[in-house]
């Protein structure tokens, strides 16, 4: 059967030999030990060469894990954009119990795809609600297993970025903001930071008094965080202003990455003081 499939790859996309348009074909999904649906053979895409299993027989089946995007039309698709073809008798089970999952198979779950090296098809799909560490990340799946009708084309957008931060997923950065307040700041004043992420709540972040004219706050923010902020004395009538007393533009904080970030800010004037 596999040989037959491999021999007719060019039929993919047109009126099919299976009696109907292929886009309506559904994979055979075996949930747990029982086959629930009638098998619909899935043809192999022409761009995916058969793996050279004779030269390097794998002692164990390759396991690839990632976030699930879709299981549809004979494919399992991961959030990396990689699509693997499902074997007709693929078993879909919960990775923890080995039994049929007690939840809907939906995007956002995590999955391990176990691939048969000889066919390149996924023979088992193990699902979980949390990331699975015990498998090769799907991003490292060999091209021989990935299904894509078009040949990979380079993307100039993916050249080394000139963006200001490394990744939205980069680690937390310890951010210290030190603020020098104007000399007419009342001695018992508290100083806060209002941010756009808090709906400009005038008391969103409270700062520590460090000395007579300095306040500071230490916080942790993810790399890639980008927000606007202003200093206040706890209300919008006491927000900071330009030296002239005119409204000042909001400050912007961009966390570019790294371990620590120190910011020294000078507050020139408060809106409620002449």
């Amino acid at each position, binding site marked *: 059967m596999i040989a037959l499939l491999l021999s007719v790859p060019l039929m993919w996309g047109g009126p099919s030999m299976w009696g109907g348009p292929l886009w309506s074909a559904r994979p055979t999904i075996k949930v747990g030990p029982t086959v629930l649906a009638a098998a619909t053979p899935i043809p192999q895409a022409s761009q995916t060469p058969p793996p050279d299993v004779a030269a390097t027989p794998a002692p164990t089946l390759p396991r690839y894990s990632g976030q699930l995007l879709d299981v549809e039309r004979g494919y399992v698709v991961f959030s990396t954009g990689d699509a693997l073809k499902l074997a007709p008798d693929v078993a879909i089970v919960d990775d923890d119990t080995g039994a049929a999952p007690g939840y809907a198979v939906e995007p956002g779950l995590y999955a391990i795809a176990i691939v048969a090296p000889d066919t390149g098809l996924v023979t088992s799909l193990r699902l979980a609600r949390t990331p699975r560490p015990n498998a090769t990340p799907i991003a490292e799946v060999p091209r021989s297993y990935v299904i894509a009708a078009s040949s990979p084309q380079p993307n100039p957008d993916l050249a080394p*970025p000139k963006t200001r931060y490394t990744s939205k997923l980069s680690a937390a950065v310890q951010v210290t903001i030190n603020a020098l307040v104007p000399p007419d700041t009342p001695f018992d004043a508290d100083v806060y930071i209002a941010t756009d992420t808090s709906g400009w709540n005038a008391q969103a972040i409270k700062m520590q008094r460090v000395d007579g004219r300095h306040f500071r706050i230490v916080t942790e923010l993810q790399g890639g965080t980008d927000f606007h902020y202003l200093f206040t004395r706890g209300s919008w009538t006491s927000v900071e202003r330009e030296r002239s007393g005119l409204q000042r533009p909001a400050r912007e904080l961009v966390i570019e990455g790294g371990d620590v970030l120190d910011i020294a800010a000078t507050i020139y004037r408060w809106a409620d003081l002449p």
Partner: protein
Amino acid sequence: MKRAIALAAALAAMSPIPARSDQAPQDVGHALLRVSAGHVRYFADQAVVQARDGVEVRLPDGAVVRGDIATVDLRLRRIAVAGHVTLHTAAGDYAGAGFADFFAFRRAYFLPLVPAADRWTFLNGDWSTPEKGREMPGDAFALPDLQNIQPYIEGTSAAIDFTTFARFAPATIRVFDAVPTPALPVYVYNYSANQNFGVNSLSGASFDAPYAFAGSADSLDALHLRYDQTRPVKAFWSFEHHSVFGDAGYAVFSLNPASEPTKQWNLLGYDQVGTRTGFAVNAQLFTVQSGLAQPASSNGFADVQLTQALAQSALRVDATQSYDSLLATGEPNHPFVLGSQWAGYDQPLFRSGFTYRLQSGLAHIHDAFGISGQTLPDVWSHYLGAYLATPQYQGPAGIGLDATAQIQRTWLSFPNTITTTTLTASASRQVTPHIYLVATQLTQTVSATSAALTFASPNTATGLTPAPQSLNGLPIYGIATVVPDAVSRNYILSGSWQPSTAFQFSAAAQQTNYSPVQVPGLTSVPRYQLNGDARFRITRTLFADVSRGYLFNWGGRVWTPQFGIQVSAQ
């Protein structure tokens, strides 16, 4: 040869411009993205809208995407749709596994499964000619993990402006991240980077729950359910409208409370001409009326300011018109204050490390019925003031020392002369990486020729302490100054401790010596106080602030009357 070069140049100019790797994010504008599904949820701490069950997303250009799940990342300006995806565009319909659109970069990624699994990239909104096989970012379709997070808002549809607001309908809001409200017909959540949406014209309430029921890219309307234990009717509701315009302009109107006869109508406005000239208006109207019926009383004021930045200083012209009664009945008194203030910027004092600031003002006050109960209808005032600040000096044992001094003298043509001084000296030390101690000695004085020949107005150009902070224009050092000469000496030891980003504690011990008279009473300053304040995270986005003071049995008062408790979003 020249012809060949010209031809080559022309061909190069005619060829399609390749997508560049250094393409900067573009302004996504305010076109709305419309999402509908069985469940549309907003997760505030992730700035993500997630839709499930029969998702339909209508893109700003009219294209429609359907799928099992959609997530809209407001920070990344990205939408991702996954699971049984169909994409309906003017150029055709497609079926696939995933769709992601990065609006700021005008890149839409699509994973078709028909006729075969593939990778397509649509550039610049062109749905007709996808770039097939083009490599995609590894996280183009990544879905945020929201399994253990409670949504802040839940509904079945949302209209989303990536930079300003999202409008949910209907909407169930989880108050304090815990208590869901009944389904409201609509709720507008504003997350604009424009700080003028934060301008607040509502005063006086210990509890405020806003319900934003209408909004756009440049406006927001909200009802506020409020509670104030000092009012006869403690619970009431108010209305507030925001409009923003230009680079810095705003107008805020409010009615507070709207549900009680005693009403306060507020208008705040601001705009700038260029970067050096600003115009501000602050008007308040106080009425006693049932609903919108003829008021039984009506008074108010309007204050207009024009600020002009100069070289190393700024000039402000400030006019205040008061209306003691706007009705045919009552005293038709309309006091008027017109003044100008000049404020210098902080300047270095030679190379000493000291900085100083100078300021002055001139104002004219007119009250046809006599100013401050006197017979004079017109009074002139002018003032001069200066601040001097030291740098921080390093003392022994890691102690930092700094000080500031302020002096101001105001002349009134009553006549009266008022001189105020403030001297602050601080010694500070970082005890541990998370603990700071600051010892402060503060001396404040006021000396006036007369304690009666003064007045208060909202206008600060007079050099007097404005209303409503002061009822007579003299400064307040803990209590209102009613004598010609007063001195307040304070010794404060304050400490702050921030062991983690989720907890802060601060405390202050204070001794106050106030002369000429400091005896226990409701309006006096306690001689000894101990205040504490703890701020701690209660949810992923909410902090609670709990404070209380101990007064050492000052006139029978041991503790401050109650705990101060405040919950705020971070």
